């Protein structure tokens, strides 16, 4: 009675044979394979929607051009001299801005129901989060290369050479990874991807502006200079500058960034994972 097939159905029944011919059961992916597979998904997204790289890097690129050519002469004598100072900082700003996309992407996946499918699969349950982070770290790397490439065109000449630049980028990616956990939490609190963006920028904008990215804090009023010296971004930029220019004098800042990254991850990652496991 329940199989009162529609006309023409029987003729097409053959097409389903292949659907069920395969083995019914396989062993699910290992945790590592699941994370890598979900990271592959993030890479595919970059391939299909490259615009997501540009809309967030557009602002730091605009700032680079504006500050270098408008204020560079006044701030450092010449645009070319200023870009040596600015670029290691702008890379930091660009990558930190892009970390917001971790939260935006996760929020979109959750609201679209994609995570319901992932969570109903027999895989290591946090794999979707780590897979997304793996893809994000790749994206941060691409953004860093883009901004440094622009800097080279503008006359940026890192004294530390390739090893110095690579070391600075690795340190930056480490810090960005830890900050991403915060946006994962934000993304699970707020309702829409747009509000993830707004909430996160409300925090990131002052954090990157009130730092030593654009000017030497020594030129600021004492109270502001003091505040800036406690800003983790300041330490990250100091470390980035000394590594890129091969000055080696900022061991303190490097250690500071490593410790800060460890603390941020240790505090926020467990919260984010617990929230992810909690039902919605």
């Amino acid at each position, binding site marked *: 009675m329940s199989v009162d097939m529609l006309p023409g159905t029987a003729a097409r029944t053959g097409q389903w044979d292949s659907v069920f011919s395969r083995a019914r059961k396989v062993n*699910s992916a290992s945790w590592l394979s699941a994370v890598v597979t979900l990271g592959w998904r993030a890479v*595919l997204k970059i391939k299909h929607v490259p615009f997501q790289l540009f809309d967030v890097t557009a602002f730091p690129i605009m700032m680079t051009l504006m500050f270098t050519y408008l204020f560079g002469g006044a701030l450092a004598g010449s645009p070319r001299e200023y870009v040596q100072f600015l670029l290691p900082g702008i890379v930091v700003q660009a990558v930190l801005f892009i970390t917001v996309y971790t939260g935006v992407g996760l929020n979109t*996946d959750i609201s679209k129901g994609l995570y319901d*499918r992932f969570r109903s699969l*027999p895989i290591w349950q946090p794999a979707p989060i780590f897979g997304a982070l793996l893809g994000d770290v790749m994206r941060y790397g691409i953004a860093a290369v883009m901004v440094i490439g622009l800097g080279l065109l503008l006359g940026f000449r890192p004294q530390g050479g390739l090893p110095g630049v690579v070391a600075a980028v690795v340190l930056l990616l480490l810090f960005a990874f830890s900050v991403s956990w915060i946006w994962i939490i934000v993304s699970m609190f707020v309702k829409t991807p747009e509000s993830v963006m707004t909430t996160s920028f409300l925090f990131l904008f002052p954090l990157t502006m009130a730092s030593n990215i654009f000017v030497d804090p020594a030129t600021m009023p004492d109270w502001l200079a003091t505040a800036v010296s406690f800003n983790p971004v300041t330490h990250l930029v100091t470390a980035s500058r000394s590594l890129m220019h091969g000055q080696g004098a900022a061991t303190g800042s490097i250690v500071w960034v490593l410790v800060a990254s460890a603390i941020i991850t240790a505090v926020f990652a467990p919260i984010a994972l617990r929230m992810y496991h909690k039902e919605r």
Partner: protein
Amino acid sequence: MQGGGGPHFPYNQAMSTMPAIQISGLAKSFGTTRAVDHIDLQIARGSVYGLLGPNGAGKTTTIRMLATLIRPDAGTARVLGHDVVRDAAAVRSKVSLTGQFASIDEDLTGKENLVLIGRLLGLSWADARARAAELLDAFGLAEAAGRQVRTFSGGMRRRLDIAASLVVTPEVLFLDEPTTGLDPRSRSQVWDIVRAIASEGTTVLLTTQYLEEADRLADRLAVIDHGRVIAEGTSRDLKSSVGANMLHVRLREATQLADAQARLVEVLKVDVQRHADPCLLSVQVSDLALVGNALASLTSAGVVVAEFSLGQPSLDEVFFALTGRPAESESDNGQEARA
């Protein structure tokens, strides 16, 4: 209709006749809303089971609990003998879920979506690609395989979504409103797919708002309202309790309603149901031979009939028959019933 009660089987047979899904006292609240209010259900292996109810009845919440996505507040649910809370991992290894909204990545192509799921289920890259190609072919999506899903039509998305649930053939498949929002052609394609899946021995639990869909697909069904099961049985049981032959009479003039109602009662000798629509009357007809007389009687009384049809009860009428509470009444609780 009661299942079970048969002789004691040897262990192996008992395993194979064990229900695919056993739900007992299952409950879930969100804030003060009781989404699922102590449901008991037994779903036989290899069957297609329908959860029928209006929006907000608790169908999706029930399925999400069975697919281990949310935890019940009370009661237990076992899928293939595994508790959905304690043995969640075991449940996940045997079921697939196709949610209400297409749970596929819109930025990726159709093929990439299926390869992704195949890889997560442990297939090698080569096997995952081969399996994806096979499924795309069977689901009529081969030509669109390389296109981003955001360019797909609603019907194509739905088929891809179901295909993603079959990368490894599950023992139990949950389909949450598989045809909501689809055009009639896509709907009948999805029905064909569900029948094919069931004929291969997979137990299918689907939710729907359409009586016709439950009737066509499901071996048994439960009618759910406000988180409770208000009827359970085969489609035939349900229809005989509701009345398979519903006569719908639509008048041109609402002023003639009382007159028409009196005539219908006189000829058919059963209660006539009024609706929020002031021109509509419906009657459950037990003796089909009287239907012709009813039309003749209306015509001779000068009642102008705009529509006179005999057919299946609508979901509203099922609700009326089962709850005694009109889904749409003259005092107009219609909104509440639909909410």
